[in-house]
């Protein structure tokens, strides 16, 4: 197990370097620079443009800039935003809890519905429920997030008035962020009304962000379960006279979980991608929207820092997923 862990950890270093290279050079391939983006229609004269490039250190050769950047990253300095002039790390830390809160809720939503739906569909193969689940999950998978989000807002918020339209909490609640996770901060302040307001604001974005992973997880669970249910040991279990629940829940489900866990791990990346649109629609102050704005404004330090931090998080989650295999299935642990 330890050897496995070390092998995986050693792979992180080249991946990390690759990420810094991609984050640094990709944005510079896009035409335009941050100074031009700041100038707008007014334009900027060549002398001032050059002076500002020097001030931001953007006049140096690219490799020199990259070297300086890596040096700073190594010492934990991700730089300052060219637009807001705030530290990239502090902006990330202020916004990331919102993204994580939403991503966790969406993950929970997709797991709590996707896994049972997939299991029931597999157990009742070719039933109306099975076809229903598969049809709905295909629809969910193909649903454009922007359209889906606006549709839910129009129906549940505007027409029915059940949920708030957007934001993280009603503006009447004044909550000073402690952890940044509003569900926790409101409870820490003992403000129940604010807590329920935060919950109500989470409902629609959770559904929108969780729909795609839900569809994937439901389909993956169903096919994994179908495969396992056809195995000899399941037949043996049934022959032994075990109840259907025990066969499905204990024997089949545990073995079917391995591919599902892989998919859940991969969904972390999908969740961050989906968060960009979901955060824009629901005015959710997270890192997705922050990065998109940084692209529009060619805010190099924010893009580099943000991509790097998100990359590290995705890598860490995938490492955790790999380690989880061993816990779920001891055979994997032994073969390592």
């Amino acid at each position, binding site marked *: 197990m330890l050897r496995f862990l070390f092998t995986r950890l050693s792979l992180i270093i080249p991946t990390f370097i690759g990420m810094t290279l991609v984050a640094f050079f990709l944005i510079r391939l896009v035409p335009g620079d941050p100074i031009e983006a*700041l100038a707008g229609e007014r334009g900027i004269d060549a002398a001032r443009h050059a002076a500002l490039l020097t001030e931001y250190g953007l006049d140096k050769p690219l490799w020199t800039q990259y070297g300086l950047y890596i040096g700073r990253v190594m010492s934990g300095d991700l730089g300052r935003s060219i637009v807001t*002039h705030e530290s990239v790390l502090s902006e990330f830390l202020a*916004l990331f809890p919102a993204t994580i809160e939403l991503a966790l809720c969406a993950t929970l939503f997709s797991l709590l519905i996707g896994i049972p739906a997939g299991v029931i569909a597999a157990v009742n193969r070719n039933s109306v429920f099975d076809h229903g689940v598969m049809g709905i999950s295909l629809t969910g998978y193909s649903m454009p997030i922007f359209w889906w989000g606006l549709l839910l807002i129009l129906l549940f918020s505007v027409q029915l008035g059940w949920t708030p339209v957007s934001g993280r909490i009603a503006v009447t609640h004044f909550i000073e962020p402690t952890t940044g996770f509003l569900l926790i901060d409101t409870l820490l302040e003992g403000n129940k009304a604010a807590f329920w307001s935060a919950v109500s604001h989470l409902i629609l974005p959770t559904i929108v962000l969780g729909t795609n992973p839900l569809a994937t997880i439901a389909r993956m669970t169903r096919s994994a379960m179908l495969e396992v249910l056809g195995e000899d040991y399941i037949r043996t279990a049934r022959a032994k006279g075990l109840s259907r629940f025990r066969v499905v829940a204990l024997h089949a489900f545990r073995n079917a979980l391995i591919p599902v866990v892989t998919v859940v791990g991969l969904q972390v990346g999908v969740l961050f991608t989906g968060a960009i649109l979901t955060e824009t629609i629901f005015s959710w102050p997270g890192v997705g929207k922050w990065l998109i704005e940084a692209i529009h404004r060619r805010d190099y330090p924010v893009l580099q820092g943000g991509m790097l931090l998100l990359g590290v998080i995705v890598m860490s989650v995938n490492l955790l997923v790999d380690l989880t295999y061993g816990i779920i299935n001891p055979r994997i642990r032994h073969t390592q």
Partner: protein
Amino acid sequence: MRAPTVKIRVALLCAMSIPAILVAAPVAAKTLVFCSEGSPENFYPAINTTGTSFDANSQIYSRIVEFERGGTKVGPGLAERWTISKDGKEYTFFLRKGVKWHSNKSYKPTRDFNADDVIFAFERQWKESNPYFKVTSSNHTFFNDMGMPALLKSVEKVDDYTIKITINQPTAPFLANLAMEYAGVQSKEYADAMQKAGTPEKVDQEPIGTGPFSLVQYQKDAIIRYKAFAQFYGGKAPIDDLIFAITPDSSVRWAKLQKGECHVMPYPNPADLDAMRKEANTKLMEQPGLNVGYLAYNVQKKPFDDVRVRKAMNMAINKKAIIDAVYLSSGTAAKNPIPPTQWSYNNAIKDDVYDPEGARKLLAAAGYPKGFSTDMWAMPVQRPYNPNARRIAELMQADLAKVGVTVEIKSYEWGEYRKRMQNGEHQTGMLGWTGDNGDPDNFLTNLLSCDAAKPGGANVAKWCNQAFQELISKAVTLTDQAERTKLYEKAQVVFKEQAPWLPIAHAVQLTPVRKEVIDFKQSPFGRHTFYGVDIKE
């Protein structure tokens, strides 16, 4: 064998049951919520150029002179009166006494506003030796763009409540320039305290102003909370709290307005306009904007060096069809380079009539009986003065094909687009402008002067006409508005004769507000300020 299946189904049902669905708490009385479109860059307007930043900062800072609410007229601000010397070069400002500063957790003011603060506001942007020149950023865009470094000779403190500013040459828009957001006055005492504490950047992050609202809380991309400043020199604002609920998507802003989650929203989606006009609980405020969208002909490139070709182009394009199809009800046809709301607008000028046959004849007379090929640059982004440049280009392309002109539509990434156009790489291309200070010079000098026609300048027609230049150069030195108006009217005649542009449209400013909002006034500059606004209980 049935029971376990039921268990699983029950579990599924439980998982699917969403917690009790709650509705947002209603907004408290005397709290006005503005669904703003984005986060301000920071709280120092002098280094920013976006309306988003100005909206957030205008509530906090005051300037020595102010634009009237909803207009372009300049009136007293932190200076209660001023005198201008006969030669138009010396401005003496008499400052208000007893003007209080806001306070926050890290700073409690010990003195009222005085002349030191005004000098700090200038020197921070002007003198590199000022310790705050580079704090946050040295990119003092508007101070530079308004020509302040070249214009200012001295800013002197006569006494604690009198300031004398001397400029190098008489410049009529100088006063209006001082009413712009970049000239917002910050507290020198606060700046000194923060510098001493080793955190100078706090001045721009936790702002202290003398404006009608003080900042209470800012959470990036989420919310800005202000509280009405009870000691504001103009009297406390009618509302108690002002909240900017940051909502980037325009359709979502509209949904929030309908539901009463906000009272005012900027920049509606044109597709929602019909619904907005029909909605009982809101009203759609409309006002011609201080902007112009245009198609510029690069007069330094053939065949657009010939005025007949430019005129023919103007006659071949059906402007009305463009307004109807693209601007919908949010634009009016433009004939001059300045909008009708701008004083000195020459309404006597007749626009070029849509006449494809006449255009063909004019092209033949210019030596292009079979037409010619040209490029046409279309912006890749929506702008306040042009909702869809690509679509407009396609309509123009179809019109011009009828007179034998083959158009190739080109576009680049937005920053690159502007840079290349300002360098004159195009033959024809679309761009536009939104007025900064309510002065015609702001349009005409920035967009059509000889100086701006140099590579990198904003005169993208690269048109330098001596008669026009003399008129606008003279007008800017005069203080008498009637005299200036005459000169600008003549300049517009020269512009129309020479046709360096096809002026396309002036976009109408649209602001949907809830019915309970009282006395919200649209700003010609597109700002959203809330002093003087009230809400029905």
